[in-house]
């Protein structure tokens, strides 16, 4: 009997990185997983992997979280298959840019809010009816130290993630009477996105590891996902509106993150 036995979890961006790590940890605990992923191949591969390794019921749906209809259809797919949604993890991110605030375009800012804020907002709205009907729900929003500490160069990401933290607290208050808990995780981890950056700049990876109080950035599955398992289960039923910094202590260590920025876009 796993800690999330037969619970239905919808996880966005579960085809790689932290989303995949959380999906694997949930599957190990007996959850049924809807792998919502923009890229059909990685989504299907993760769903297959969850079934093969953990015997989990898993199903992949191709989902662009910037598309409201697709986000709502994602939740309906879980309802069609399993009759409810117990756990929603808003993890997906993509399409951000690195550059100075004064050169960010409206399109870049809008895209960031669409993916990082509106997508989770629609998913939470769509998951509410089922969670409210059963008097229980666990929502986890992946937010970021980038926003909390104002890392430079990623304005659209920082703004979307801090808007999502405000939404997390607001939903926690408004939906507390329904038994729904809503929390945020700010992870410090080697994500799918950071892998590409580190591959191109190996010295940045060494710097990032060294700047962490524990001397390393976390692993999605081994370091971040166990906290998500806790927030997704009954042990967290009285914990809501919180942000958990799962970052080896980075948030109490300041942030030496200061990449070289191009002078112009």
């Amino acid at each position: 009997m796993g800690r999330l036995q037969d619970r239905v979890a919808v996880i966005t961006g579960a085809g790689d990185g932290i989303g995949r790590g959380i999906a694997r940890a949930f599957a190990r605990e007996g959850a049924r997983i809807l792998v919502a992923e923009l890229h059909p191949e990685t989504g299907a591969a993760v769903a297959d992997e969850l079934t093969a390794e953990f015997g989990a019921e898993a199903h992949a749906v191709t989902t662009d979280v910037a598309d409201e209809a697709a986000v709502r259809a994602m939740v309906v797919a879980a309802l069609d298959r399993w009759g409810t949604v117990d756990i929603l993890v808003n993890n997906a991110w993509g399409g951000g840019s690195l550059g100075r605030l004064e050169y960010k375009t409206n399109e870049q800012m809008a895209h960031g809010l669409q993916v990082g804020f509106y997508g989770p907002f629609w998913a939470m709205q769509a998951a509410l009816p089922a969670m409210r009907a059963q008097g229980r729900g666990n929502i986890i929003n992946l937010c970021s130290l980038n926003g909390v500490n104002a890392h430079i160069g990623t304005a659209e990401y920082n703004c979307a993630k801090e808007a999502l933290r405000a939404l997390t607290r607001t939903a926690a208050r408004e939906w507390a009477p329904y038994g729904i808990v809503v929390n945020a995780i700010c992870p410090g981890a080697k994500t799918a996105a950071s892998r590409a950056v580190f591959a191109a700049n190996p010295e940045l990876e060494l710097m990032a590891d060294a700047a962490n109080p524990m001397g390393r950035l976390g692993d999605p599955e081994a370091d971040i996902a166990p906290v998500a398992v806790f927030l997704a289960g009954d042990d967290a039923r009285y914990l809501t509106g919180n942000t958990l910094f799962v970052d080896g202590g980075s948030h109490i260590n300041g942030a030496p993150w200061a990449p070289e920025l191009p002078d112009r876009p």
Partner: protein
Amino acid sequence: MSAPTSSNVPTALVTGASRGIGRAIAIGLAGAGFDVAITARTVHDGDPTAFEPDTGVPLPGSLASTATAIESCGRRAVPTRLDLLDLDALAPAVDAAIAGLGHLDLLVNNAIYVGPGAHRRFLETEPEDLARRVCCNVTAQLLITQRAIAHMVGRGGGLVLDISSAAGQLTPRRPVGEGGWPLAYAVTKAGFHRIADMLALEYGDAGVRAFNLNPGFVATERVLAVEDLAFVADRSVRPEVVGRVVAWFAATGQHRLENGSYHQVTELARELGYLP
């Protein structure tokens, strides 16, 4: 679920929407922006009606679960429990839907009789069962439609989509039990099939548009649970495809196609790119 509705939101009533084709149509319409009233016998999952009548196999789905999915699409659901056998309850159920929605743009006649003995030849069918099937597959639809289009004519028009079946027009190659459908089903579907074209004739000028849609073979929960329906399951499309086609029909198709006409869901789905 009784909040006032804005009259510019399109609205629909879908009968038989606890599971299967009706549920998929209700969700497809909600995804296309409709507030949706739904009827069925099963109010909650696991109610006594939520079982395949011949085998007792439990079937998922209920008014509550379809309402949840409609709300997940960001639309309003107006559920009303309704048994087609209860003739006196039919027009009041339409009234309840209209009251809950504020007005009615679209009626989808999807519900039919579901009870034991559906896969029997004529002589093995109880006389009372024949009467029930005619009542619930033709009379009930006439009474529901009459109330709905009275409202639509009063508002200057509306749309009726009748979920028809090849059984209403064609003779199967083999009898029921050997890959075909039973006489009673064919006869009642044939009668039902004539509602749309006659509505178009009598009330087309009053703004009523009516069509028959044949969903073809659909992999509903009941089909997948019944061995006698394996021939359907083998050749079937997923219910969601029917839902998407009906949503397209309500938005676009009804204005392009001849009033009173008959269409195959799979053909439309291929033209629209919903099926390969």
